[in-house]
């Protein structure tokens, strides 16, 4: 059980770190760049969802 708590903590740290970097970097992107990034992020999460769905998660 404790190991899962540690995993969860690590995952949260990773997500918050990546989120912070994305917020810092996205300030310097142009409007079309932001739009393209949003589209690719949506597609990426959808594809990850399909991947885990196919694996029976």
């Amino acid at each position: 059980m404790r190991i899962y708590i540690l995993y969860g903590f690590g995952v949260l740290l990773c997500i918050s770190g990546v989120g912070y970097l994305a917020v810092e970097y996205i300030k310097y992107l142009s409007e079309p760049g932001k739009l393209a990034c949003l589209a690719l992020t949506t597609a990426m999460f959808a594809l990850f969802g399909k991947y885990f769905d196919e694996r029976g998660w």
Partner: protein
Amino acid sequence: MTAKNRSSLYLYLALVCFAGILAIFVVDGYLGIYDTLYITVQEREQVIEPDYWDQRWVKESYEGYSLGARWGESIPFRYQIDNRSFSTYSVDVEVSVWRGGQKVIVPLDKIEVSVAPFKKAIVEWTLRFEDLEETSPVSGEYREYTVRIRRGEIERKIIVSYYPESPVYPEKVPPLSVPVTEPAR
């Protein structure tokens, strides 16, 4: 296509999307119009990179870039416009010098600069001290001028402070006290 192959395909496509996001960050960061200023004062060239103007404290305070110069020194400026886009960039550039909210001189009258795609253009001028029509400085006094560089809608502010040169040692040291005379006998 088997279920395993299909799930692998989704994974690879998701990774391609992630690579695409990283590529957008790199390419988008490279593309654009960038300006760099080269100013030579006191025999040292100072380079003001485009990133300087994007810093939060510069944007919020809008103080401009400060530099110090010797009294009477002429300052050469070199303004480089880097066009990292797929079309020709044309813009008006004008340079003026201000003090106390009043325009003093115009070292560079409005000129149109045209930069081809992925090329650079350089605009040069010199801020001549004689043109400022300054009188002799009072000891310890300095003068500040604001150089405004307008490129289309964008303005860059450089604050130049002229400091009078003072000798390190006084030429003649005044006596610290009255000479002591010998008492009369």
